[in-house]
């Protein structure tokens, strides 16, 4: 078997395993949700309808105490969780083989084309997830992360695949390795952070009350409210969201991941400038790729600020983080494919 075939089969294998992991971890999440609902029911019947009990619980959620968050609830074990964990792990190992084999085949680090960026980036996302998972139970992120990885990898293998070629002179640089590898790692971290943020928003919005549509002063506002209520109904139907931690905890996790991603992205932009200075004689030229790297950086900086700004902490800052990830995807897709620039010779 050639390195090329090995890479190809390993990556397809990983895609299939991630798909299985996504299904299994979703089932697990639903089980957790059921168990929590059942436990809550029990507590409620034990405490009775006493208002004291419920207000104490609310108070707990509001003041985040160091100790409570330090001791995670014993992760629930289900058969589905076992399947999800093992398929994700084996998938990551297979994907690792696929990525390395691609590198050997190409004769350089496997991240110079969109295809290579995709296979390496999704791999980093899964590995980041596995690393966080070792420290604490974040299995609720698994459906999002493995689902994203399966889809991105599948798309990469079917539509982006390109036989490997040698590197162009401008890409032969130590700074390519540094700049792009850190960019990929940052992308992987942001991906996991994005999953946490989306869960945070879904979980948060789920607690909303429907708004009155009749009282809207004009049609636009009425449609807006109807749209909001429709989303709310959908979210309320997603019972598996019960299995996800409360928004405050997700926010905390998402911030930590975003913080890591932001530092890495800052480094990416700076290393890119150093590389551009070496290769093109200017460190910054507002090439489309540079514009978008800057836009991404500024959006995430805005997110970090919003977290500590009155009226923006929580939900609104989470939306900014989502915008950051959308920009990240834009940078990788639309900007690569549509806009011309110096970076375009990195190949599609």
């Amino acid at each position, binding site marked *: 078997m050639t390195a090329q075939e090995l890479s190809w089969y390993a990556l397809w294998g990983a895609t299939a395993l991630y798909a299985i992991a996504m299904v299994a971890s979703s089932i697990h999440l639903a089980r957790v949700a059921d168990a929590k609902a059942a436990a809550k029911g029990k507590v409620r019947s034990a405490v009775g309808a006493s208002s004291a009990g419920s207000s104490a619980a609310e108070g707990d959620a509001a003041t985040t105490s160091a100790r409570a968050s330090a001791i995670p609830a014993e992760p629930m074990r289900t058969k589905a969780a076992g399947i999800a964990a093992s398929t994700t792990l084996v998938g990551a190992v297979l994907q690792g083989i696929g990525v390395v084999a691609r590198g050997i085949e190409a004769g350089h680090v496997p991240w110079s084309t969109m295809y290579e960026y995709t296979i390496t980036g999704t791999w980093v996302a899964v590995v980041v997830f596995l690393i966080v998972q070792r420290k604490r139970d974040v299995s609720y992120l698994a459906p999002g992360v493995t689902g994203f990885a399966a889809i991105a990898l599948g798309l990469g293998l079917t539509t982006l695949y390109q036989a490997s070629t040698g590197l162009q002179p*401008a890409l032969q640089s130590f700074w390519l390795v540094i700049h792009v590898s850190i960019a990929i790692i940052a992308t992987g971290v942001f991906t996991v952070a994005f999953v946490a943020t989306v869960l945070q928003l879904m979980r948060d919005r789920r607690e909303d009350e429907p708004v009155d549509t009749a009282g809207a002063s004009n049609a636009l506002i009425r449609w807006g409210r109807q749209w909001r209520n429709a989303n709310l109904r959908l979210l309320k139907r997603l019972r598996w969201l019960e299995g996800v931690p409360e928004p405050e905890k997700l926010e*905390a*996790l998402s911030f930590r991941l975003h913080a890591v991603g932001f530092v890495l992205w800052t480094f990416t932009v700076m290393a890119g400038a150093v590389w551009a200075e*070496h290769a*093109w004689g200017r460190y910054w030229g507002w090439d489309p790729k540079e514009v978008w790297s800057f836009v991404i950086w500024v959006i995430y900086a805005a997110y970090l600020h919003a977290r500590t700004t009155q009226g923006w902490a929580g939900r609104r800052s989470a939306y900014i983080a989502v915008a950051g990830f959308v920009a990240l995807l834009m940078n990788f897709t639309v900007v690569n494919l549509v806009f011309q620039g110096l970076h375009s010779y990195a190949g599609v």
Partner: protein
Amino acid sequence: MARVKMDNYAYAAVPRLGFVGWLRWIWRQVTSMRVALILLLLLALAAIPGSVLPQWPQDAGDTRAFIDANPFWGPLLDATGFLDVFGSAWFTAIYLLLFASLIGCIIPRCLVYWRELRAPVPATPSRLDRYEPTTASADQEPREALEDVRVALEGTGPAPWRWLSGYRVRIDERSAREGTELALSAHQGHLRELGNLIFHVSLVGILLAVAAGSVLTYRGQALIVEGDTFTNAVVAYDSYESGALFSEDQLEPWTLSLDSFDAQFSLAGAPTEFTAYATLTEPGQEPREVEAQVNRPIQVDGAKIYLQGNGYAPVFTVTDSSGEVAFRGAVPFLPQDEVYTSTGVIKVPDVTEGEQLGFKATLLPTSSGDAVGAQSLHPSPTNPVIYLQAYTGDLGLDAGIPQNVYQLDESQLSPVRGDDGQPLLVAMTPGQTIDLPDGLGSVTWDSLPRFAAFDLRRDPSLPWLLAAAIGALAGLAMSLFGTRRRIWLVAPATAPPGGAATVVTAAAWAPAHDSGAAEELDRILSTAHLTPATNEHPPEDR
């Protein structure tokens, strides 16, 4: 946040605010966190058109074409700065406001930080119940136990490091319901705040370095044919631009000779390596051999010379109708595609008699044949063929308007025709001489050297920029990964009678994203030889 209200009350309040009051109000708005946030979002939004629309500084040709193709939107977008976003008034306004806000924000924060550093640590809260306290027992005297904890909290290592990364601790004796007690309060978080300040100050540094660079820089482009020598002077550059504070007398007259240019291509024709071998002679110094590759510029006199492009520059000899040599030299051809199909123009104004001559030529480095319609198969000069079209008439060089050397102004030229009356198109190979019809003269293709295009740039701000960038990165890491934690311990002032262990109540606090505080407390307690009481953790309810 104050809002401008348009009701009577607000109007009434305006005069009392006064001019200075207004200024102060505006300043407060500008430096508020919310405005900073909005400016950041605006900055991101404003940058996007710069990647979607063609931009003058990046690609003038595309921009011109865009304006011509869109008679309504083109000029409108141009006039409103959308075709030069990063130089436009509105983009500049956003980032200048942002930096005004930033400066207005960090100066007071630096002062507060300075004061906080010297202020005593805030005392322990009178009740720790809110912070989910645990208890631990100590065999030592209460005071000794707390002193041990203090040592554990302050950490080890050199003093400045301890001061930054460790806890600052105070121990008070105070009276409580159960009698006198000792309360220890420990704060950590200087590293975080310091990092944050370094980060924001470094951002200002980056802006200043970029601004300084733009006025102190110069850059030029020059094209050197193998065997030729370039002298560093404004006239020698094909294009030259410099910042407002750089004067041309500062150019040092070194020379650069291109000895040879090595271009490597794969079998499929993809470029693998370009190397320019050159000799650099600086005034008063021995000539030295230098090499430039795409990622490896040549360094000279604080400037860097980048290899930017390359191509072929065939050497021609043209004789006129009287048999005199009217032109001899290398003519750079511009590569048009990956296989270096290159086009160039030969202008022969100095004929001894008759009309001026002009030629349009296309070079195929590895031609698939020498018939019309042949293509180049590879960028290397394996089977080079040049297709030549000749013109006679007036080249239009006397009008005094600088001409593009890569284009022939055909308005006053007429093509030389062959026997069939069609414009003549001849194929030639190296060394060949073509006689033009009607005794107009001849063209000889002597040789096929390569040229290298260099981009030279001097920017003395680069080290400063790098330093500011590194500062920003380090500050950012400190700010985001540094912890902000509080630890409190309370113990009765005197050990319980009868040799029983002292019971210490301990609690920790940290922001929600930091889940390590409780573990740290446990670690500190065990370092100080306190035994944590086996406390039952409340099971999580959600």
